[in-house]
Structures are given as structure tokens and as C-alpha cells.
């Protein structure tokens, strides 16, 4: 049965689709190394026409891997998983479509709301992130998303659908050179 994923038609008008991977959530969750393999492969695939392809691929792989790891850790085994990279000028958009439980959905909404609120206040997001580094416990979902905002100036959006959710992250990495 082909996977069912929800993609934002409006976004596709603005952004040019570069590459997309769809698979059953069960398959994606069957092996942790999928995160590494998919992020490395996709980052390299879309890197060749960027000014410094190795730098771009390394940074995009790093950001994408964190997002895939977040998705992997949702622990929801049903439904389908979709990962796409689209592009508009210097911005690469990562869209992750997946299924998750209600509590996880609320957690994502809370994290994204917090980021969007912090973005209004200069420095608040970075202060949050620095503070999280010194905590005893490992990185939570909110910290991982905060790091993308702080390190890559990412913009994050979270959409919900009937049977899935979508994490949309815009990364302005395309114009980077050393």
C-alpha cells in the first residue's frame, strides 16, 4: 500500500521540491541508523549547486538528523512517515510528516509556541538554549528545536492533520560560504 502523507500545497507553490522520501513509520522506526543514512544522503543529494557544497551538506545533514531523531523518538509505530526537502533561493525547507500520540502532539505544539514567543524577544531563545546545556538531564524535544533556531537561524512551524502531524523547518543555509 503506498504511504499517505500530507503535504502543504501552498508551500509547494513557493518552494521547489528537491527530494522526498516516504516510508511506513514501522520501517523507519525499525533501525536508528535510518536517521543518519537519510540525513547524510538527502543533504548530499541537494548540496551540489550550493556555493560550498561540503559545508552546506555537513550543516544540512546535522540539522536534518536532529529532526529525524526527534521523529524517531515519537515511538508511534503506525501510519506513514514522509521527509521532503524543498528550496526557495537560500532557504531549504524540511518537512517531516509522521504520526504521533496526543501527548507528543501537545509537546510539539508547546515547544514550537515557546520558540515562536522567544523569537519575538531578542536573545530569549538563545538564553533558553544555553540554560538547557547545563541541565543534568539529556536534551529534550524543546531543546533540540531550540538548537536549530539558535545555530541555524531556523524558522519552525508545526501543523496538525487528522491522522498525522507535520514539522516544517526553514533553514537559511544556502548562501553560506567560508
Amino acid at each position, binding site marked *: 500500500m503506498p504511504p499517505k502523507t500530507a503535504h502543504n500545497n501552498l508551500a509547494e507553490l513557493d518552494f521547489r521540491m528537491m527530494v522526498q522520501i516516504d516510508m511506513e513509520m514501522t520501517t523507519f522506526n525499525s533501525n536508528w541508523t535510518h536517521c543518519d543514512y537519510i540525513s547524510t544522503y538527502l543533504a548530499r543529494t541537494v548540496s551540489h549547486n550550493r556555493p*560550498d557544497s561540503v559545508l552546506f551538506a555537513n550543516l544540512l545533514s546535522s540539522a536534518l*538528523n536532529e529532526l529525524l531523531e526527534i521523529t524517531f523518538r515519537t515511538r508511534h509505530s503506525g501510519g506513514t512517515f514522509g521527509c521532503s526537502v524543498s528550496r526557495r533561493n537560500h532557504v531549504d525547507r524540511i518537512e517531516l510528516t509522521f504520526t504521533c500520540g496526543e501527548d507528543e502532539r501537545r509537546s510539539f505544539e508547546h515547544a514550537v509556541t515557546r520558540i515562536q514567543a522567544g523569537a519575538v524577544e531578542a536573545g530569549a531563545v538563545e538564553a533558553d538554549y*544555553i540554560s538547557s*546545556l547545563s541541565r543534568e538531564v539529556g536534551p529534550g524535544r524543546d531543546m533540540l528545536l531550540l538548537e536549530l533556531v539558535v545555530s541555524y537561524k531556523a524558522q519552525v512551524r508545526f501543523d496538525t492533520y487528522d491522522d498525522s502531524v507535520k514539522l516544517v523547518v526553514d533553514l537559511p543555509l544556502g548562501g553560506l*560560504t*567560508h
Partner: protein
Amino acid sequence: MTAVPFTNSPPFKVQFDSSNQEFAISGSVRPRSVDEIVPSLTLLREAIDSVSGVFYLNVRRLSQMNNTAFHAFTHLLVDACQARPDMSFVVITSSVVGWTTQKFGRLSRIEPAIRVEEYDADFYPGQSFLEEGGFIPVLRTQTKMTWRHECNILPRHGMREGITMADICCGIGDFAALVQKEFKPARIVALDHSRSSLAYARQVAADFNIRGVEYIYGDASEMMFEDNQFDLVTCRHSLQIFDRPTLILREMYRICKPGGRVYITNEKISQCLGEPHGESIEWTYDELAKLFAHFKMDLEMGPKNRHYLMDAGFDDVRAESFMVTNLDGDPQDFADVIQAWEDTFAGEMSNKRGDSPEFVERFRRGFQDHIFAALHPKGYAGWPVWVASGRKPL
């Protein structure tokens, strides 16, 4: 030195060098949980416990680290700062990787005892003389002059249509652009450690609508390319101005595919020649070789190409040479190159060594005599270049 190999995550390695008090993490570290990296964390903790003074965390070859691992390693470092206030911690990053300097740099806002240093900020001793402003036009002319020869030579050393190739220490990128046009490789990446040269290369590529060359910032002695990627790896006129050429050759060997070739060119500058005024020219180029040696650069390296390649593990080593002369094309091109050499070598470099005015005057005279020979209707002026390539064994 103690090393911990990772069976489940072979892409990364950690090791501790007790003599340098340096703990190094390299490769890609993306564990699912902290449990997977406990041996590494234990080694780091034991390493810190075993030293005093300054502790170095070397991440210059760390290409990837997920936040699970980053938090575990850095939390251990922060804890160590609090437990050992007598110590300071230096994180050594590379500007090439792109994320480590900024990300590890944030640790100093939590613990001032942690400091980040980019190790490759002043890495190439000859670069400052050669990369800035005025030398760029002459580099273009030099490549134009050598290309007349190399475009015929290269096919004997593995160049052919459709290959994947890397040009290491590409400078202003003109050789890569010429290769792209003439030989149409499937992929060509051109790497250099000079931001100004790469900016120039990208601008030229944009202006001339040259597509398909990836200009990449990188450190030739520690490249971010994976092993066994390229059919042909070239490095022209650069090993001779690097004080540790074997490091670059080792990296070129690593990224070359088995059965692929590594191609290098170097000079023996003391054998530049010309007539008339041959003696004056000979004296100046002998002195030029000594001047470069003073700055730890071996401009006499050309005939040693074969030796270097064999020592690096290559087989089927092929070596030849060619002479760029005033008769190849417009003699004025030759004269322009020599004039630029004089300006830089008898100017900034000679001045930096502290040469006397009398020496500089005689030194300059040889260059002027070389120009005279190049432009003389019956004159002859030459600049010899040594070429060699070796095959990476299958």
C-alpha cells in the same frame, strides 16, 4: 596513547594522547542513547583525572555529533570545570567543519574555564605571500602558460571524460575551470584554504557561466571528503609551499579510489634559465630557492615528486617534466609572470627575511635579466615544471 574503537558506530573514534594532554574525537557521533558512548565518556573522564594544567579537547576532525552525544560530552567537561578549578580546558576546532567553533564556543558562557581555538587560522606559511590581491592576475597567467602543456600531459596521468576528480589547493580555481571545459569530468570539486581565492573563483565561474565546479573551503591536510571517492586527485604547485607535504599526500591517497591516480606538479626553481645574461638569472633563482627554504617551503621539490609518491604508497608512478618558455605564446605573458615574482619575492618576502639593499638589488637584477631574455628577439627564457602521478593500489 589509548584508543577505543566503536563496533556499532564505526564512523567515529576517540583517543587520548597523554603526552599532549589531548583527547580527540573524530568522525560522526550519532548515538541513540548515552549508553552507546559510555566507553568514550569513561575514557574522557579518566583522561581529565590523570592530568593537571591545560586539557585539550580536539574536535577538529569531528564532522557530526548529535545533541545526545554533545550534551553527554560537554556536560562531563562542565562538571570537570567545577570539580577541578585548577584546570583550564581548550577545545580545538577547525574552521572547515562549520559548526563546531560556534557550538562548543557557547560552553564558555557556562564555564569561563572552557576556551575554543580554531587550529587552522594561520596554517599555511606561504599562503599570505601568494593569495592576496596583486598576485591573482599572475596566477591566471601562470595557469594559462602551463595549461598549454598540461592539457596534453594529463591524459597520460588518468584524466579522461566522465571521471570524478578533486583539485586540491585549487587557488583561484582556473585549472579546475579549464579541466571542466576540456575534459568534462562527471564531477569536479576544487578545494582551497584561502577564502579570498575561493571568492574570486566563484565570481569568475559566475561571470563566465562556468557550471559544474564545486569550490570548497577546506584544509588539504584534513579534508572532509570520505575515503576512496575520486578517480583523479590533482595538486599543482602546492606541495612545495607546504611545510608538511606528506600530510597532504596522505590525505590525497585516502580520498583517491583504489586504481585511481594522484597527480602532482612542482618546480625546481633554481633551474629557471634564460639567455642572454644566463649567469645573473641562475644566481637569482638559486637565491630564490634559498629564500623559500628560509620560510620552510621547498621550491626545489619537482624532481622529488616520484620519491614522495612512492613513499606515500602509490604504485605505477609516472614522472615527466615540461618547460614553459617565452616561445609558447605571447612573450609578454612570460615577462608579466616574472615581474610579479620579482615584486613579491624580492619585495615582501626578501624584506621579511631582512635582506640587505645590496642583496635585493642583485636579486632583482636576475629577474629583470630573465624578463630581458624573454622579450629579446633572439632570447630564450624557461621555467621548468615537474609532473608526476601515482596509482593507488587496488
